[in-house]
Protein backbone atom coordinates (compact mmCIF):
# COMPACT_ATOMS: atom_id res chain seq x y z
CA UNK A 1 0.00 0.00 0.00
CA UNK A 2 2.69 2.44 1.04
CA UNK A 3 4.72 1.50 -2.01
CA UNK A 4 1.78 2.05 -4.35
CA UNK A 5 1.02 5.36 -2.73
CA UNK A 6 4.54 6.68 -2.99
CA UNK A 7 4.74 5.54 -6.61
CA UNK A 8 1.50 7.38 -7.30
CA UNK A 9 2.80 10.46 -5.56
CA UNK A 10 6.13 10.58 -7.30
CA UNK A 11 4.29 9.99 -10.58
CA UNK A 12 2.06 12.99 -9.92
CA UNK A 13 5.02 15.13 -8.98
CA UNK A 14 7.00 14.16 -12.05
CA UNK A 15 3.96 14.93 -14.13
CA UNK A 16 3.53 18.33 -12.48
CA UNK A 17 7.18 19.13 -12.95
CA UNK A 18 7.05 18.05 -16.58
CA UNK A 19 3.90 20.11 -17.16
CA UNK A 20 5.45 23.31 -15.82
CA UNK A 21 8.64 22.52 -17.77
CA UNK A 22 6.63 22.35 -20.99
CA UNK A 23 5.10 25.76 -20.34
CA UNK A 24 8.50 27.23 -19.51
CA UNK A 25 9.82 25.71 -22.73
CA UNK A 26 7.00 27.44 -24.61
CA UNK A 27 8.78 30.76 -24.01
CA UNK A 28 11.91 29.37 -25.67
CA UNK A 29 9.81 27.82 -28.45
CA UNK A 30 8.00 31.09 -29.09
CA UNK A 31 11.27 32.96 -29.29
CA UNK A 32 12.80 30.40 -31.67
CA UNK A 33 9.70 30.27 -33.86
CA UNK A 34 9.63 34.07 -34.08
CA UNK A 35 13.25 34.20 -35.25
CA UNK A 36 12.88 31.32 -37.71
CA UNK A 37 9.66 32.64 -39.27
CA UNK A 38 11.08 36.15 -39.71
CA UNK A 39 14.27 34.72 -41.22
CA UNK A 40 12.43 32.40 -43.64
CA UNK A 41 10.04 35.08 -44.80
CA UNK A 42 12.75 37.64 -45.38
CA UNK A 43 14.83 35.23 -47.46
CA UNK A 44 13.31 36.30 -50.81
CA UNK A 45 14.38 39.90 -50.18
CA UNK A 46 17.79 38.88 -48.88
CA UNK A 47 18.32 36.64 -51.94
CA UNK A 48 17.26 39.39 -54.33
CA UNK A 49 19.31 42.19 -52.83
CA UNK A 50 22.03 40.34 -50.92
CA UNK A 51 24.04 42.21 -48.31
CA UNK A 52 23.23 45.44 -50.14
CA UNK A 53 19.80 45.24 -48.49
CA UNK A 54 21.38 46.47 -45.26
CA UNK A 55 23.13 49.51 -46.74
CA UNK A 56 21.15 50.54 -49.82
CA UNK A 57 19.18 53.74 -49.34
CA UNK A 58 16.78 53.01 -52.16
CA UNK A 59 13.17 52.24 -51.19
CA UNK A 60 11.10 52.11 -54.32
CA UNK A 61 7.89 50.04 -54.28
CA UNK A 62 7.20 50.90 -57.92
CA UNK A 63 10.48 49.52 -59.25
CA UNK A 64 10.56 46.88 -56.47
CA UNK A 65 14.00 47.95 -55.25
CA UNK A 66 14.39 47.90 -51.50
CA UNK A 67 17.17 48.71 -49.06
CA UNK A 68 17.11 49.15 -45.31
CA UNK A 69 19.64 52.00 -45.22
CA UNK A 70 17.27 54.91 -44.62
CA UNK A 71 15.18 52.97 -42.13
CA UNK A 72 18.21 51.88 -40.12
CA UNK A 73 19.66 55.42 -40.18
CA UNK A 74 16.35 56.88 -39.04
CA UNK A 75 16.06 54.34 -36.23
CA UNK A 76 19.62 54.99 -35.05
CA UNK A 77 19.38 58.80 -35.30
CA UNK A 78 16.10 59.08 -33.40
CA UNK A 79 17.36 56.64 -30.78
CA UNK A 80 20.62 58.60 -30.54
CA UNK A 81 18.78 61.88 -29.92
CA UNK A 82 16.58 60.13 -27.37
CA UNK A 83 19.60 58.76 -25.50
CA UNK A 84 21.39 62.15 -25.47
CA UNK A 85 18.37 63.72 -23.80
CA UNK A 86 17.09 60.82 -21.71
CA UNK A 87 20.30 59.61 -20.06
CA UNK A 88 21.25 62.86 -18.27
CA UNK A 89 17.61 63.53 -17.41
CA UNK A 90 17.08 60.02 -16.03
CA UNK A 91 20.30 59.99 -14.03
CA UNK A 92 19.33 63.38 -12.58
CA UNK A 93 15.98 61.97 -11.53
CA UNK A 94 17.60 58.82 -10.13
CA UNK A 95 20.07 60.88 -8.09
CA UNK A 96 17.25 63.09 -6.84
CA UNK A 97 15.17 60.07 -5.81
CA UNK A 98 18.00 58.15 -4.17
CA UNK A 99 20.08 60.90 -2.55
CA UNK A 100 18.22 64.19 -2.33
CA UNK A 101 14.47 63.94 -2.01
CA UNK A 102 12.95 63.99 1.46
CA UNK A 103 12.07 60.41 2.43
CA UNK A 104 8.36 61.12 2.54
CA UNK A 105 8.40 62.30 -1.09
CA UNK A 106 10.55 59.55 -2.59
CA UNK A 107 7.81 56.97 -3.10
CA UNK A 108 5.17 59.31 -4.56
CA UNK A 109 7.60 61.09 -6.89
CA UNK A 110 9.13 57.78 -7.97
CA UNK A 111 5.66 56.38 -8.65
CA UNK A 112 4.72 59.47 -10.66
CA UNK A 113 7.82 59.13 -12.84
CA UNK A 114 7.03 55.45 -13.36
CA UNK A 115 3.51 56.40 -14.43
CA UNK A 116 5.11 58.01 -17.49
CA UNK A 117 5.91 54.45 -18.55
CA UNK A 118 2.27 53.43 -18.19
CA UNK A 119 0.94 56.08 -20.59
CA UNK A 120 0.26 54.18 -23.84
CA UNK A 121 2.66 54.96 -26.68
CA UNK A 122 -0.20 55.94 -29.00
CA UNK A 123 -1.05 58.73 -26.56
CA UNK A 124 2.55 59.97 -26.68
CA UNK A 125 2.30 59.91 -30.46
CA UNK A 126 -0.93 61.82 -30.64
CA UNK A 127 0.21 64.33 -28.05
CA UNK A 128 3.48 64.70 -29.93
CA UNK A 129 1.66 65.38 -33.22
CA UNK A 130 -0.93 67.86 -31.93
CA UNK A 131 0.94 69.56 -29.06
CA UNK A 132 4.71 69.11 -29.33
CA UNK A 133 5.12 69.36 -33.13
CA UNK A 134 3.46 72.81 -33.42
CA UNK A 135 5.55 74.00 -30.47
CA UNK A 136 8.69 72.74 -32.19
CA UNK A 137 7.73 74.39 -35.48
CA UNK A 138 6.79 77.77 -34.00
CA UNK A 139 9.29 78.19 -31.18
CA UNK A 140 11.99 75.60 -30.64
CA UNK A 141 13.23 74.97 -34.17
CA UNK A 142 13.39 78.67 -35.22
CA UNK A 143 15.34 79.38 -32.02
CA UNK A 144 17.73 76.47 -32.66
CA UNK A 145 18.13 77.58 -36.27
CA UNK A 146 18.95 81.13 -35.22
CA UNK A 147 21.47 80.18 -32.55
CA UNK A 148 22.93 76.88 -33.71
CA UNK A 149 22.24 77.20 -37.43
CA UNK A 150 25.97 77.12 -38.18
CA UNK A 151 25.73 73.36 -37.55
CA UNK A 152 24.26 71.34 -40.42
CA UNK A 153 21.96 69.56 -37.95
CA UNK A 154 19.86 72.62 -37.23
CA UNK A 155 19.18 73.99 -40.70
CA UNK A 156 16.23 73.87 -42.97
CA UNK A 157 12.54 74.60 -42.72
CA UNK A 158 10.95 74.21 -39.28
CA UNK A 159 8.15 71.77 -39.96
CA UNK A 160 7.62 70.48 -36.46
CA UNK A 161 7.50 66.83 -37.44
CA UNK A 162 10.87 65.19 -38.13
CA UNK A 163 13.80 63.37 -36.58
CA UNK A 164 14.34 65.84 -33.74
CA UNK A 165 10.74 65.79 -32.53
CA UNK A 166 10.62 61.99 -32.78
CA UNK A 167 13.83 61.73 -30.76
CA UNK A 168 12.51 64.06 -28.06
CA UNK A 169 9.23 62.16 -27.69
CA UNK A 170 11.21 58.90 -27.51
CA UNK A 171 13.38 60.44 -24.79
CA UNK A 172 10.34 61.22 -22.65
CA UNK A 173 9.08 57.66 -23.12
CA UNK A 174 12.26 55.93 -21.99
CA UNK A 175 13.12 58.24 -19.07
CA UNK A 176 10.95 56.29 -16.61
CA UNK A 177 12.69 53.00 -17.47
CA UNK A 178 16.23 54.32 -17.12
CA UNK A 179 15.39 56.45 -14.06
CA UNK A 180 13.67 53.73 -12.05
CA UNK A 181 16.29 51.04 -12.66
CA UNK A 182 19.13 53.51 -11.96
CA UNK A 183 17.45 54.62 -8.75
CA UNK A 184 17.19 51.01 -7.59
CA UNK A 185 20.85 50.49 -8.45
CA UNK A 186 21.93 53.66 -6.62
CA UNK A 187 19.97 52.59 -3.54
CA UNK A 188 22.05 49.38 -3.43
CA UNK A 189 25.22 51.35 -2.61
CA UNK A 190 26.44 50.16 0.81
CA UNK A 191 25.66 52.72 3.49
CA UNK A 192 29.10 52.33 5.08
CA UNK A 193 30.87 53.53 1.94
CA UNK A 194 28.75 56.65 1.74
CA UNK A 195 29.07 57.37 5.44
CA UNK A 196 32.83 56.96 5.20
CA UNK A 197 32.83 59.49 2.36
CA UNK A 198 30.77 61.99 4.29
CA UNK A 199 33.05 61.41 7.30
CA UNK A 200 36.00 62.50 5.15
CA UNK A 201 34.17 65.72 4.32
CA UNK A 202 33.00 64.93 0.80
CA UNK A 203 30.15 66.89 -0.71
CA UNK A 204 27.04 65.02 -1.86
CA UNK A 205 28.15 65.35 -5.49
CA UNK A 206 31.56 63.89 -4.67
CA UNK A 207 29.86 60.95 -2.97
CA UNK A 208 27.69 60.42 -6.05
CA UNK A 209 30.59 60.79 -8.50
CA UNK A 210 33.18 58.73 -6.63
CA UNK A 211 31.09 56.17 -4.75
CA UNK A 212 27.47 55.82 -5.91
CA UNK A 213 28.05 55.93 -9.68
CA UNK A 214 31.18 53.71 -9.75
CA UNK A 215 29.44 51.22 -7.48
CA UNK A 216 26.38 51.07 -9.74
CA UNK A 217 28.19 51.46 -13.06
CA UNK A 218 27.14 48.09 -14.49
CA UNK A 219 23.57 48.57 -13.35
CA UNK A 220 23.38 52.01 -14.93
CA UNK A 221 24.81 50.61 -18.18
CA UNK A 222 22.15 47.90 -18.04
CA UNK A 223 19.43 50.49 -17.46
CA UNK A 224 20.68 52.63 -20.36
CA UNK A 225 20.71 49.62 -22.69
CA UNK A 226 17.17 48.66 -21.66
CA UNK A 227 16.03 52.19 -22.45
CA UNK A 228 17.87 52.05 -25.77
CA UNK A 229 16.21 48.75 -26.67
CA UNK A 230 12.82 50.30 -25.98
CA UNK A 231 13.61 53.39 -28.05
CA UNK A 232 14.81 51.36 -31.04
CA UNK A 233 11.58 49.41 -31.35
CA UNK A 234 9.07 52.06 -30.31
CA UNK A 235 6.51 52.37 -33.06
CA UNK A 236 3.44 54.49 -32.55
CA UNK A 237 5.00 57.55 -30.98
CA UNK A 238 7.60 57.74 -33.74
CA UNK A 239 5.18 57.05 -36.59
CA UNK A 240 3.10 60.10 -35.65
CA UNK A 241 5.91 62.63 -35.55
CA UNK A 242 8.77 61.43 -37.75
CA UNK A 243 7.23 62.76 -40.97
CA UNK A 244 7.58 59.62 -43.12
CA UNK A 245 9.98 60.71 -45.84
CA UNK A 246 12.56 58.69 -47.74
CA UNK A 247 15.57 60.91 -48.00
CA UNK A 248 18.70 61.35 -45.97
CA UNK A 249 19.51 64.78 -44.64
CA UNK A 250 22.02 66.19 -42.21
CA UNK A 251 19.29 68.33 -40.74
CA UNK A 252 17.49 66.91 -37.73
CA UNK A 253 14.51 69.10 -38.62
CA UNK A 254 13.98 67.03 -41.76
CA UNK A 255 11.33 64.33 -41.83
CA UNK A 256 12.58 60.76 -42.01
CA UNK A 257 11.48 57.21 -41.36
CA UNK A 258 12.44 54.51 -38.89
CA UNK A 259 12.13 50.75 -39.27
CA UNK A 260 9.11 50.70 -36.99
CA UNK A 261 7.36 53.62 -38.68
CA UNK A 262 7.81 52.09 -42.15
CA UNK A 263 6.34 48.82 -40.89
CA UNK A 264 3.38 50.60 -39.31
CA UNK A 265 2.63 52.60 -42.45
CA UNK A 266 3.28 50.13 -45.24
CA UNK A 267 2.90 46.56 -43.99
CA UNK A 268 -0.81 46.20 -44.77
CA UNK A 269 -0.38 47.94 -48.12
CA UNK A 270 2.50 45.85 -49.39
CA UNK A 271 1.60 44.24 -52.70
CA UNK A 272 4.14 41.96 -54.27
CA UNK A 273 6.23 39.29 -52.63
CA UNK A 274 9.51 41.16 -52.70
CA UNK A 275 7.93 44.23 -51.10
CA UNK A 276 6.41 42.19 -48.25
CA UNK A 277 9.58 40.17 -47.84
CA UNK A 278 11.64 43.37 -47.62
CA UNK A 279 9.35 44.69 -44.89
CA UNK A 280 9.76 41.42 -43.01
CA UNK A 281 13.51 41.77 -43.53
CA UNK A 282 13.28 45.18 -41.85
CA UNK A 283 11.47 43.69 -38.88
CA UNK A 284 14.12 40.95 -38.63
CA UNK A 285 16.85 43.60 -38.56
CA UNK A 286 14.97 45.49 -35.85
CA UNK A 287 14.43 42.32 -33.84
CA UNK A 288 18.10 41.35 -34.02
CA UNK A 289 19.35 44.83 -33.06
CA UNK A 290 17.02 45.07 -30.05
CA UNK A 291 17.84 41.47 -29.09
CA UNK A 292 21.55 42.31 -28.88
CA UNK A 293 21.02 45.60 -27.03
CA UNK A 294 18.47 44.20 -24.57
CA UNK A 295 20.53 41.04 -24.06
CA UNK A 296 23.60 43.09 -23.20
CA UNK A 297 21.56 45.23 -20.81
CA UNK A 298 20.08 42.19 -19.06
CA UNK A 299 23.48 40.53 -18.67
CA UNK A 300 24.91 43.69 -17.10
CA UNK A 301 22.01 43.95 -14.66
CA UNK A 302 22.32 40.24 -13.89
CA UNK A 303 26.02 40.37 -13.12
CA UNK A 304 25.19 43.11 -10.65
CA UNK A 305 22.50 41.28 -8.66
CA UNK A 306 24.37 37.99 -9.02
CA UNK A 307 27.44 39.57 -7.47
CA UNK A 308 25.37 40.85 -4.61
CA UNK A 309 23.72 37.55 -3.81
CA UNK A 310 26.95 35.58 -3.99
Amino acid at each position, binding site marked *: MGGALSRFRSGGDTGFRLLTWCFAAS*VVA*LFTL*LTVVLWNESLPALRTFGARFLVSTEWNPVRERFGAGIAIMGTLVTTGIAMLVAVPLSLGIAIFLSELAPHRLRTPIGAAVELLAAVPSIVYGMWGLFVVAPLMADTVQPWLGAHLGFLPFFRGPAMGVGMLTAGLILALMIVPYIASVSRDVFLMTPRELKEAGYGLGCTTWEIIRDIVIPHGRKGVMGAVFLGMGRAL*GETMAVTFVIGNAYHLSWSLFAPGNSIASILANEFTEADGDVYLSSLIGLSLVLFLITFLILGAGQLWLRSLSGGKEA
Partner: protein
Amino acid sequence: MPRVSVGRRRLLNALVLTGSTLAAVTGLAVLVWILADVGIKGAGAVRWSFFTNLPTPPGMSGGGLGNAILGTLVMTVTAAALAVPVGILAGTYLAEFGRGGRFAAVVRLLSDILVSAPSIVVGVFVYLVLVRPMGHFSAWAGAAALAIIMLPVVVRTTEEMLLLVPNAMREAALAMGAPYWKMMFRVIFRASRAGIVTGVMLAVARVAGETAPLLFTSLNAPYWMHGMNEPTANLTVTIFNYAMSPYEDWHALAWGAALLITLSVLIVTTGARLAMRGGGTR
Protein backbone atom coordinates in the same frame (compact mmCIF):
# COMPACT_ATOMS: atom_id res chain seq x y z
CA MET B 1 43.82 64.44 -6.27
CA PRO B 2 44.06 68.07 -7.40
CA ARG B 3 43.49 70.64 -4.70
CA VAL B 4 40.23 72.44 -5.24
CA SER B 5 38.98 75.15 -2.92
CA VAL B 6 36.06 74.35 -0.64
CA GLY B 7 34.06 77.15 -2.21
CA ARG B 8 34.33 75.68 -5.70
CA ARG B 9 33.50 72.19 -4.43
CA ARG B 10 30.41 73.56 -2.73
CA LEU B 11 29.43 75.51 -5.85
CA LEU B 12 29.78 72.42 -8.06
CA ASN B 13 27.80 70.42 -5.52
CA ALA B 14 25.01 73.00 -5.50
CA LEU B 15 24.95 73.09 -9.33
CA VAL B 16 24.68 69.33 -9.70
CA LEU B 17 22.03 68.99 -7.01
CA THR B 18 20.01 71.80 -8.58
CA GLY B 19 20.29 70.09 -11.96
CA SER B 20 19.13 66.82 -10.46
CA THR B 21 16.15 68.48 -8.79
CA LEU B 22 15.28 70.22 -12.07
CA ALA B 23 15.41 66.83 -13.83
CA ALA B 24 12.85 65.45 -11.38
CA VAL B 25 10.67 68.54 -11.79
CA THR B 26 10.88 68.15 -15.58
CA GLY B 27 9.77 64.53 -15.35
CA LEU B 28 6.78 65.44 -13.20
CA ALA B 29 5.94 68.44 -15.39
CA VAL B 30 5.85 66.26 -18.53
CA LEU B 31 3.49 63.82 -16.82
CA VAL B 32 1.17 66.63 -15.75
CA TRP B 33 1.40 68.24 -19.20
CA ILE B 34 0.42 65.07 -21.07
CA LEU B 35 -2.36 64.18 -18.66
CA ALA B 36 -3.73 67.74 -18.70
CA ASP B 37 -3.77 67.90 -22.51
CA VAL B 38 -5.41 64.50 -22.84
CA GLY B 39 -7.91 65.36 -20.10
CA ILE B 40 -8.87 68.77 -21.49
CA LYS B 41 -9.08 67.75 -25.14
CA GLY B 42 -10.64 64.37 -24.44
CA ALA B 43 -13.28 65.38 -21.91
CA GLY B 44 -15.39 67.14 -24.56
CA ALA B 45 -15.84 63.96 -26.58
CA VAL B 46 -16.80 61.66 -23.73
CA ARG B 47 -20.56 61.59 -23.39
CA TRP B 48 -23.12 58.80 -23.35
CA SER B 49 -23.20 58.32 -27.14
CA PHE B 50 -19.41 57.94 -27.10
CA PHE B 51 -19.81 54.58 -25.35
CA THR B 52 -22.91 53.32 -27.17
CA ASN B 53 -22.86 54.53 -30.77
CA LEU B 54 -21.02 53.46 -33.87
CA PRO B 55 -18.63 55.92 -35.51
CA THR B 56 -20.24 58.26 -38.03
CA PRO B 57 -18.74 59.61 -41.27
CA PRO B 58 -16.87 62.90 -40.83
CA GLY B 59 -19.24 65.85 -40.59
CA MET B 60 -22.05 63.93 -38.92
CA SER B 61 -22.37 64.43 -35.19
CA GLY B 62 -23.40 61.90 -32.58
CA GLY B 63 -20.78 59.31 -33.47
CA GLY B 64 -19.28 57.09 -30.80
CA LEU B 65 -16.69 54.40 -30.40
CA GLY B 66 -18.85 51.73 -28.79
CA ASN B 67 -17.60 49.07 -31.18
CA ALA B 68 -13.95 49.96 -30.56
CA ILE B 69 -14.41 49.89 -26.78
CA LEU B 70 -16.05 46.45 -27.03
CA GLY B 71 -13.32 45.17 -29.37
CA THR B 72 -10.52 46.32 -27.08
CA LEU B 73 -12.22 44.71 -24.07
CA VAL B 74 -12.84 41.40 -25.84
CA MET B 75 -9.33 41.14 -27.28
CA THR B 76 -7.64 42.12 -24.02
CA VAL B 77 -9.65 39.59 -22.01
CA THR B 78 -9.02 36.86 -24.60
CA ALA B 79 -5.31 37.65 -24.57
CA ALA B 80 -5.27 37.36 -20.78
CA ALA B 81 -7.13 34.04 -20.95
CA LEU B 82 -4.47 32.72 -23.34
CA ALA B 83 -1.38 34.13 -21.63
CA VAL B 84 -2.16 33.87 -17.92
CA PRO B 85 -2.37 30.06 -17.50
CA VAL B 86 0.73 29.50 -19.64
CA GLY B 87 2.60 32.28 -17.88
CA ILE B 88 1.71 31.14 -14.38
CA LEU B 89 2.79 27.54 -15.03
CA ALA B 90 6.01 28.66 -16.72
CA GLY B 91 6.70 31.00 -13.80
CA THR B 92 6.01 28.09 -11.45
CA TYR B 93 8.73 26.07 -13.15
CA LEU B 94 11.22 28.93 -12.76
CA ALA B 95 10.43 29.48 -9.08
CA GLU B 96 9.96 25.89 -7.92
CA PHE B 97 12.17 23.69 -10.09
CA GLY B 98 14.49 26.04 -11.87
CA ARG B 99 16.42 27.72 -9.08
CA GLY B 100 19.98 27.79 -10.30
CA GLY B 101 19.29 25.63 -13.35
CA ARG B 102 20.71 26.51 -16.76
CA PHE B 103 17.49 25.94 -18.72
CA ALA B 104 15.65 28.20 -16.29
CA ALA B 105 18.32 30.87 -16.72
CA VAL B 106 17.77 30.79 -20.48
CA VAL B 107 13.99 31.08 -20.03
CA ARG B 108 14.51 34.02 -17.66
CA LEU B 109 16.82 35.84 -20.05
CA LEU B 110 14.56 35.30 -23.08
CA SER B 111 11.50 36.41 -21.08
CA ASP B 112 13.24 39.58 -19.97
CA ILE B 113 14.25 40.32 -23.56
CA LEU B 114 10.75 39.58 -24.89
CA VAL B 115 9.26 41.95 -22.30
CA SER B 116 10.97 44.87 -24.03
CA ALA B 117 11.07 43.48 -27.59
CA PRO B 118 9.46 45.71 -30.24
CA SER B 119 5.75 44.99 -30.21
CA ILE B 120 5.44 45.74 -33.93
CA VAL B 121 7.67 42.72 -34.64
CA VAL B 122 5.19 40.58 -32.73
CA GLY B 123 2.49 42.00 -35.00
CA VAL B 124 4.48 41.00 -38.10
CA PHE B 125 5.02 37.51 -36.65
CA VAL B 126 1.34 36.94 -35.89
CA TYR B 127 0.41 38.24 -39.34
CA LEU B 128 2.68 35.60 -40.87
CA VAL B 129 1.58 32.65 -38.72
CA LEU B 130 -2.12 33.43 -38.24
CA VAL B 131 -3.52 36.16 -40.49
CA ARG B 132 -2.03 35.02 -43.80
CA PRO B 133 -2.83 31.30 -43.39
CA MET B 134 -6.39 32.14 -42.26
CA GLY B 135 -6.76 34.59 -45.12
CA HIS B 136 -8.23 37.46 -43.10
CA PHE B 137 -7.61 39.77 -40.16
CA SER B 138 -9.34 38.69 -36.98
CA ALA B 139 -9.89 39.34 -33.31
CA TRP B 140 -8.20 35.98 -32.64
CA ALA B 141 -5.02 37.21 -34.29
CA GLY B 142 -5.15 40.47 -32.33
CA ALA B 143 -5.66 38.60 -29.07
CA ALA B 144 -2.81 36.21 -29.92
CA ALA B 145 -0.43 39.13 -30.53
CA LEU B 146 -1.42 40.73 -27.23
CA ALA B 147 -1.04 37.37 -25.47
CA ILE B 148 2.52 37.00 -26.78
CA ILE B 149 3.33 40.42 -25.34
CA MET B 150 1.69 39.57 -22.01
CA LEU B 151 3.28 36.15 -21.59
CA PRO B 152 6.81 37.12 -20.49
CA VAL B 153 5.43 39.69 -18.05
CA VAL B 154 3.22 37.08 -16.40
CA VAL B 155 6.07 34.54 -16.30
CA ARG B 156 8.45 36.86 -14.48
CA THR B 157 5.88 38.30 -12.04
CA THR B 158 4.65 34.82 -11.11
CA GLU B 159 8.19 33.70 -10.41
CA GLU B 160 8.89 36.75 -8.26
CA MET B 161 5.67 36.33 -6.30
CA LEU B 162 6.23 32.61 -5.71
CA LEU B 163 9.75 33.27 -4.46
CA LEU B 164 8.29 35.59 -1.82
CA VAL B 165 6.46 32.66 -0.22
CA PRO B 166 8.66 31.41 2.64
CA ASN B 167 10.19 27.96 2.16
CA ALA B 168 8.90 26.98 5.59
CA MET B 169 5.38 26.85 4.12
CA ARG B 170 6.56 24.44 1.41
CA GLU B 171 8.32 22.28 3.99
CA ALA B 172 5.28 22.26 6.26
CA ALA B 173 2.97 21.13 3.46
CA LEU B 174 5.39 18.47 2.23
CA ALA B 175 5.96 17.22 5.79
CA MET B 176 2.21 16.70 6.12
CA GLY B 177 2.55 14.30 3.21
CA ALA B 178 1.15 16.51 0.42
CA PRO B 179 2.48 15.82 -3.06
CA TYR B 180 4.24 18.73 -4.69
CA TRP B 181 1.39 19.69 -7.02
CA LYS B 182 -1.10 19.63 -4.18
CA MET B 183 1.20 21.79 -2.08
CA MET B 184 1.37 24.28 -4.98
CA PHE B 185 -2.38 24.51 -5.57
CA ARG B 186 -3.52 24.29 -1.96
CA VAL B 187 -0.81 26.34 -0.25
CA ILE B 188 1.69 28.22 -2.39
CA PHE B 189 -0.63 29.65 -5.07
CA ARG B 190 -3.06 30.67 -2.34
CA ALA B 191 -0.35 32.40 -0.37
CA SER B 192 0.84 34.33 -3.42
CA ARG B 193 -2.59 34.90 -4.98
CA ALA B 194 -2.75 38.64 -4.27
CA GLY B 195 0.68 39.22 -5.80
CA ILE B 196 0.00 37.15 -8.91
CA VAL B 197 -3.37 38.83 -9.47
CA THR B 198 -1.84 42.31 -9.25
CA GLY B 199 0.97 41.21 -11.59
CA VAL B 200 -1.62 40.02 -14.10
CA MET B 201 -3.50 43.31 -13.78
CA LEU B 202 -0.30 45.21 -14.58
CA ALA B 203 0.25 43.03 -17.64
CA VAL B 204 -3.35 43.55 -18.79
CA ALA B 205 -3.01 47.31 -18.37
CA ARG B 206 0.13 47.23 -20.46
CA VAL B 207 -1.34 45.41 -23.43
CA ALA B 208 -4.64 47.30 -23.31
CA GLY B 209 -2.79 50.38 -24.57
CA GLU B 210 -0.81 48.56 -27.27
CA THR B 211 -1.37 49.62 -30.87
CA ALA B 212 1.48 48.32 -32.99
CA PRO B 213 0.70 44.57 -32.61
CA LEU B 214 -2.93 45.17 -33.63
CA LEU B 215 -2.23 47.06 -36.85
CA PHE B 216 -1.70 43.89 -38.91
CA THR B 217 -3.69 41.43 -36.84
CA SER B 218 -7.11 42.71 -35.80
CA LEU B 219 -6.94 45.73 -38.13
CA ASN B 220 -10.00 47.94 -37.52
CA ALA B 221 -13.65 47.98 -38.50
CA PRO B 222 -16.46 50.54 -38.58
CA TYR B 223 -19.15 48.16 -37.27
CA TRP B 224 -19.93 46.02 -34.24
CA MET B 225 -18.04 42.75 -33.95
CA HIS B 226 -20.06 39.64 -34.75
CA GLY B 227 -17.44 37.09 -33.85
CA MET B 228 -13.76 36.53 -33.33
CA ASN B 229 -13.11 35.70 -36.98
CA GLU B 230 -13.34 39.11 -38.59
CA PRO B 231 -11.44 42.41 -38.54
CA THR B 232 -12.30 44.00 -35.23
CA ALA B 233 -12.53 47.60 -34.12
CA ASN B 234 -10.34 48.62 -31.19
CA LEU B 235 -9.56 51.86 -29.42
CA THR B 236 -5.86 52.21 -30.14
CA VAL B 237 -5.91 51.60 -33.91
CA THR B 238 -8.96 53.89 -34.06
CA ILE B 239 -6.96 56.63 -32.34
CA PHE B 240 -4.22 56.12 -34.93
CA ASN B 241 -6.59 56.29 -37.92
CA TYR B 242 -8.64 59.20 -36.59
CA ALA B 243 -5.71 61.31 -35.41
CA MET B 244 -4.02 60.93 -38.80
CA SER B 245 -7.24 61.95 -40.61
CA PRO B 246 -7.88 65.57 -41.60
CA TYR B 247 -11.31 65.81 -39.91
CA GLU B 248 -11.78 67.87 -36.76
CA ASP B 249 -14.63 65.78 -35.34
CA TRP B 250 -12.57 62.60 -35.79
CA HIS B 251 -9.71 64.29 -33.94
CA ALA B 252 -12.12 65.02 -31.11
CA LEU B 253 -13.19 61.38 -30.96
CA ALA B 254 -9.52 60.32 -31.00
CA TRP B 255 -8.79 62.56 -28.00
CA GLY B 256 -11.80 61.06 -26.24
CA ALA B 257 -10.49 57.56 -26.92
CA ALA B 258 -7.01 58.61 -25.75
CA LEU B 259 -8.50 59.92 -22.50
CA LEU B 260 -10.47 56.71 -21.96
CA ILE B 261 -7.53 54.38 -22.60
CA THR B 262 -5.06 56.49 -20.59
CA LEU B 263 -7.38 56.77 -17.61
CA SER B 264 -8.16 53.04 -17.61
CA VAL B 265 -4.50 52.06 -17.89
CA LEU B 266 -3.36 54.52 -15.20
CA ILE B 267 -6.13 53.54 -12.80
CA VAL B 268 -5.44 49.82 -13.14
CA THR B 269 -1.66 50.35 -12.91
CA THR B 270 -1.85 52.58 -9.85
CA GLY B 271 -4.42 50.36 -8.17
CA ALA B 272 -2.33 47.24 -8.76
CA ARG B 273 0.79 48.94 -7.42
CA LEU B 274 -0.94 50.18 -4.29
CA ALA B 275 -2.37 46.70 -3.73
CA MET B 276 1.07 45.18 -4.19
CA ARG B 277 2.57 47.58 -1.68
CA GLY B 278 -0.16 47.09 0.92
CA GLY B 279 -0.88 43.43 0.08
CA GLY B 280 1.36 42.04 2.80
CA THR B 281 3.22 39.65 0.49
CA ARG B 282 6.32 41.76 0.86
